[in-house]
């Protein structure tokens, strides 16, 4: 027993200092963390405000990029406030007396799909995409005089779930990433004269990334002036 005890004791004698060192180290770390947390709790209002401000600033910058695409002719021509779509980079009224109709798809004998097929018809110059139609009036990004709404107004409309088909941030990101008519803007085909239609000011990848940054920042909207 003595021998065993002595052996055991000798074992403990060898490990005890290590255990103590570890315990001391853990204690020091815990105390340091606690102190850090305490310091952070004292410093947090300002630091957190700074983080929030930076996030909001970054989010607003991302929104401005998104806004530049939404208000480009390829997108806004079908986000009118009037009874008709627009066409061309000069956003002129759509020819042939085309009207919106009840569901934004035209009227019985003059539907959007009376001319616009599921893909671009480059030989005839008629653009096309899946389910070609106007955006609902709740998603108008122009006023009734065809003037583009401000960044504030468009942002409010886009983030208002009572107007945007109940899309939250991830829903908006998905819409910008996958919706066929959104994607069409970057493959708008040829005009009747054979020239290429103008694409939005950002690439689709940049647009999606800007949307992602804006959504991650909490979808901030600019303040009204």
């Amino acid at each position: 027993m003595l021998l065993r005890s002595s052996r055991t004791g000798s074992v403990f004698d060898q490990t005890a200092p290590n255990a103590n060192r570890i315990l001391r180290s853990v204690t020091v770390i815990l105390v340091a963390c606690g102190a850090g947390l305490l310091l952070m709790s004292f410093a947090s209002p300002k630091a957190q405000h700074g983080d929030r401000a930076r996030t909001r600033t970054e989010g607003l910058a991302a929104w401005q990029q998104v806004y530049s695409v939404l208000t480009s002719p390829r997108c806004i021509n079908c986000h009118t406030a009037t009874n008709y779509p627009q066409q061309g980079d000069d956003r002129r009224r759509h020819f042939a007396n085309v009207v919106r109709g009840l569901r934004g798809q035209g009227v019985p004998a003059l539907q959007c799909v009376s001319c616009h097929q599921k893909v671009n018809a480059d030989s005839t110059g008629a653009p096309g995409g899946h389910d070609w139609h106007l955006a609902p009036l709740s998603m108008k990004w122009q006023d009734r005089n065809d003037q583009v709404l401000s960044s504030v107004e468009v942002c409010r409309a886009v983030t208002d779930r009572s107007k945007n088909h109940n899309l939250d941030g991830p829903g908006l990101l998905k819409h910008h990433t996958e919706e066929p008519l959104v994607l069409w803007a970057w493959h708008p085909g040829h005009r009747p004269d054979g020239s290429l239609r103008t694409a939005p000011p950002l690439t689709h990848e940049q647009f999606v990334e800007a949307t992602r940054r804006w959504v991650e920042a909490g979808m901030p909207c600019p303040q009204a002036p």
Partner: protein
Amino acid sequence: METYTITVNGRTKEVTVDPSAPLLWALREELKLTGTKYGCGIGACGACTVHLGGVATRSCLVPVSMVGNRPIITIEAMAEDPVGRIVRDAWVSLDVVQCGYCQSGQIMSAVALLKSVPRPTDKNIEESMGGNLCRCGAYVRIREAIRAASRQLKGGVR
């Protein structure tokens, strides 16, 4: 050149055309269905209107390669269509036509309207027929003929 099988007025037809050729040219030049007219060539006048898959469609803007298996109905088949017959009779009884060049497109649009809205309001007529131009200015008689045809359809005109 490519060969396409299309269904026109209930009959299966083969046309060998350039894939980019508008349906209008396949109808007129290949199948000799010349009732459908070439007007502006850019979808602005409605003279080339046919029904494609049941939708009034500007055949000058749709390449043959995009038609697929959607049935095509032209003015030549309107006499066999119940609504088409009523519209034709209204056209005749009101002597709508002057030069007549745009009338096949007008009738195709009018039939599409009445099949969708048997009791059209004046606004319905104005909007649906707004893409069909008539250089003779027969708009008043066209509108009256649509009203007359509507009265002949179940439900009548509003």
